[in-house]
């Protein structure tokens, strides 16, 4: 079953088509990688799915229902959670409170105080932050702040999780841990879409990959297919020559 579908999804910023006429789908239970050079429109697509932005034109469907007109908090409550490329934690609140806000408000119907606390503690345990529950979130390392965002998103009990560059800025050990974490999230039955520049992680974790370039979908397929796709290689090689010159 397609848990998420987009039809002709488009978003202009002034004259710039950040996302241009993109059709996509996500199967329930799979891990989809969303890749593309800087400025390709990946984060914008996440913003459109999570209703931070509204596609114009275009339709986004969740479990077959049109969700294009919903507000961000409603998107969360129907089961789509996300993290952010630049972490957006509640820095002056303790780690546990960050996650508690997720379990209190993100689930539908809401939870009792006891249930919300249990859910929050369980999410912290899941990402390995239990020992830091009382620490102000702003004092955490970047890797732990990213884990905290995952815990906060999971506490809203999503069926679909959007991860925006979970591994950017992390070292090798932390990247390996994050890959493990994504697999464990999938094993819980949560469908995952992940934006990532770390190719090793994308190739290792994803069932399917979608490639964006200048706002357009230029390729789609298994890691194997993407790794050998001429178009994709050209786009990435072009990037490197540009960067090198």
């Amino acid at each position, binding site marked *: 079953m397609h848990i998420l579908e987009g039809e002709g999804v488009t978003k202009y910023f002034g004259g710039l088509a950040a996302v241009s006429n993109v059709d996509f789908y996500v199967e329930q239970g799979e891990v989809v990688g969303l890749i593309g050079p800087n400025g390709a429109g990946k984060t914008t697509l996440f913003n459109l799915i999570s209703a931070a932005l509204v596609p114009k034109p275009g339709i986004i469907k969740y479990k077959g229902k049109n969700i294009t007109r919903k507000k961000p908090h409603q998107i969360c409550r129907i089961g789509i*959670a996300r993290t952010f490329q630049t972490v*957006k934690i*509640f*820095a002056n*609140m303790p780690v546990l409170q960050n996650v508690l*806000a997720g379990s209190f*408000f993100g689930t*539908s119907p809401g939870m009792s105080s006891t249930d919300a606390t249990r859910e929050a503690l369980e999410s912290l345990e899941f990402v390995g932050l239990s020992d830091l529950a009382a620490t102000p979130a702003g004092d955490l390392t970047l890797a732990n702040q990213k884990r905290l965002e995952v815990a*906060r998103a999971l506490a809203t009990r999503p069926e679909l999780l959007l991860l925006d560059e979970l591994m950017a800025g992390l070292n090798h050990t932390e990247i390996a841990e994050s890959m493990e974490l994504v697999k464990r999230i999938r094993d819980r039955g949560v469908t995952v879409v992940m934006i990532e520049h770390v190719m090793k992680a994308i190739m290792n974790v994803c069932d399917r990959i979608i490639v964006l370039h200048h706002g357009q979908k230029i390729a789609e397929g298994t890691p194997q297919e993407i790794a050998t796709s001429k178009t994709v290689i050209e786009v990435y090689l072009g990037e490197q020559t540009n960067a090198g010159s």
Partner: protein
Amino acid sequence: MNITAFTFKKSLVPGLLLVILVALVTLPIYGSLYNVILVTSILMYANLTVSWVLFSGSTGYMSLATAAFFGIGIYASALFLPTTGAVFPVLVVVLIGGLASSLVALGVGALTLRLRGIYFAIFTFVLVVLIMELGIWWELSVSHLLGRYVILVDNNVIFYTMLGIFVLVMLTTFFIRRSKFGLAMRSIGENEEAASHIGINVTMVKVITFAISAFFMGATGAIWATKLTYVDPHVAFNVLFSFMPVLMAIFGGMGNIYGPVIGAALFAYLQETLQTEFPEIYMISFGFILVAVILYLPNGVLGLIQKLWKRISGGKRAHT
């Protein structure tokens, strides 16, 4: 030792609060009329400041609409407590003042709370001017009045009403902060975008908080009007009342709910004493004090007190 110190500390704050409350409630018995009037204006400023912090301190939206809500309350009294005879009992008029302000806040909030940062601050400031101009126009061309007279109310009644509102706004702040709703407010203040994506209906939370805060401002204005006796739009919608709560909150510190009260108390006391004795240097000294506080006491006067207290109590612990 640790346990006794802990329980001592735990009962210290409620105990102290009770002593202060009793001292306030009995003030008209042992205090002079001057003291009652002084404390009434301190409470007026405290009400405005705590209400302001309730919304702006937690959500991070800088509202300059205080004078608008305060003025709406003042006009509730001017309309329903004229010298020709009270239309409703004083407490009912206070309630009307609060509700009218809340309603305006609901409307204005729904329209403007999507504005971020400086735009929201400017809009709320413009709101004050707009309502004042509307009031002037109305009085000139519809009611043909320059101003209105409000009936005299006993000083003790004004004092106790102001105190009642103060207790209510403190309790409201206290319970909201500990509630699920307070968690939503704090999340919005920390990062509104993240808050909306974890299921918080940010618009609703902001509008409701704005309206609650406006309620107490309006109620405070309604009872304050009976002290003014003469009211016109310039008096009622004086923009100074939009800025004072902000200054008082910064002065006292916004870290917890006592900071704004301490700020308002010190500020109002300074104002009352300096203004009568040295009116020329009042605003100047005021400005200097404020600059010093902002530069050297980022957490306000309360932050300083807490620092000193920590040093004292920390020193004690080191000895045992």
